[in-house]
């Protein structure tokens, strides 16, 4: 039986393993965390339908666990890759007929943007923190009170030369609008402001969700990037931006500031390039063979990609790529047999 190693047990890796197994291929998923599911495990509800994230993750995990020929190895980090061998932490090598790299992305560390005070001032949180608070039903200020004025800031750690992240992270605009709506549902009397440079609503139902946020939720959209945050004596956060549509500087006090952090290239990518000669893009994400017909292939025959390892993507896009990657693998194995 042919054997494929899938690196990373996020939604892309799991979906790819299921598809490969259904074609009669033996699969080993190598996942560095304790559990499979990837980042989506930590999310609350998914845009644009507000589907609980656990519905998606649990269904995928159930399906992959039902596959006889899929072995899941958690707490194992892939270190070295060749098309026929994957070395994991501890030095063990797994022999295989092809490899799918589905190792995903890394969240931008908001502490690097010191001017926003994450990790320094109270009540500055990231979008990932908010998802966690929503899951724990614990959205509140550090003093336990409910926020009355909330700001969300787009593009934190994306589209920013200063932190060497030029690319747009694609999902944070939609996430920002979704989170603004969730906050407004939790705190109907609160004022919610989204500070943006461009609103990117590229997918089906996204623009409609944006319109709903404006019309039915009365969320205020200010076109301007927050330049700095400082604490006030009464325990609030003062933010400064330019309201670029009126051309005037703007300041306001808020109780809670949510930083919509970007998707950075995965931590393992550098190693994959150095030790395995897989090519990276300037953004640090892995470079597919080409953008159209070879978008799940790498520059090395027998090594394939699926999901956010090559660029920021939605869950739907990552799942689609996983299926495509599985079929490309099957075809390749057939030709080399």
């Amino acid at each position, binding site marked *: 039986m042919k054997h494929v190693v899938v690196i990373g047990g996020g939604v892309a890796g799991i979906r790819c393993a299921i598809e490969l197994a259904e074609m009669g291929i033996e699969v080993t998923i190598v996942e560095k965390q304790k559990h499979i599911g990837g980042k989506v495990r930590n999310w609350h509800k998914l845009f644009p339908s507000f589907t609980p994230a656990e519905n998606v993750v649990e269904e995928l995990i159930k399906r992959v666990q039902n596959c006889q020929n899929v072995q899941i190895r958690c707490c194992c980090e892939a270190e070295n890759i060749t098309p026929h061998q994957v070395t994991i932490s501890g030095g063990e090598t797994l022999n295989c007929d092809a490899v799918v790299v589905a190792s995903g992305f890394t969240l931008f560390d908001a502490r690097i943007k010191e001017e926003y005070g994450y990790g320094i001032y109270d009540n500055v949180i990231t979008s990932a923190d908010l998802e966690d608070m929503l899951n724990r039903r614990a959205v509140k200020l550090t003093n336990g009170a409910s926020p009355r004025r909330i700001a969300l800031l787009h593009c934190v750690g994306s589209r920013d030369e*200063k932190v060497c992240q030029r690319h747009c992270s694609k999902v944070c605009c939609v996430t920002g609008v979704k989170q603004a709506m969730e906050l407004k549902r939790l705190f109907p009397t609160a004022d919610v402001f989204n500070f943006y440079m461009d609103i990117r609503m590229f997918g089906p139902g996204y623009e409609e969700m944006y319109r709903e946020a404006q019309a039915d939720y009365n969320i205020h959209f200010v076109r301007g990037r927050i*330049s700095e945050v400082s604490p006030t004596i009464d325990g609030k956060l003062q933010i400064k931006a330019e309201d670029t549509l009126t051309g005037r500087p703007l300041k306001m006090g808020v109780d809670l500031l949510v930083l919509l952090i970007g998707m950075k290239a995965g931590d393992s990518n550098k190693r994959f390039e150095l030790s395995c000669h897989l090519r990276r893009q300037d953004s640090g994400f892995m470079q597919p063979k080409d953008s159209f017909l070879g978008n799940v292939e790498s520059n090395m025959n027998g090594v394939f990609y699926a999901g956010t390892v090559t660029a920021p993507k939605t869950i739907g896009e990552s799942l689609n790529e996983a299926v495509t990657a599985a079929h490309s693998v099957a075809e390749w194995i057939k030709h080399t047999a």
Partner: protein
Amino acid sequence: MINFGFSISKPRTIDIDRNNLHKSNEIIEAMPELQTCIGCGSCTATCTAGNLTEFNFRKVHTLVRRGEYQGAYEEMNKCMLCGKCRLVCPRGINTRGVVMLIKRKIGDF
């Protein structure tokens, strides 16, 4: 009285057909990075001069790029060259360099 910027004597339209883009092209050629501005307003938000006067760095350099030079030199003179804007610009534009360049190029306009 609030000045909304309307007047009957001067047309408000930026008329690209009539504006002389020669100077603005020279400026952009000398500092191509200026064209990468995404208009985020971080520079104006943090600007020392902009919080005290009506000076708006983003607006002035954008007008210059459209061939609207009138008053730009006087406006740029309000800049104290403190450099705070450069620290926050997400495109990494050498903003003080822009101020100096615009002043040099259109000083005699």
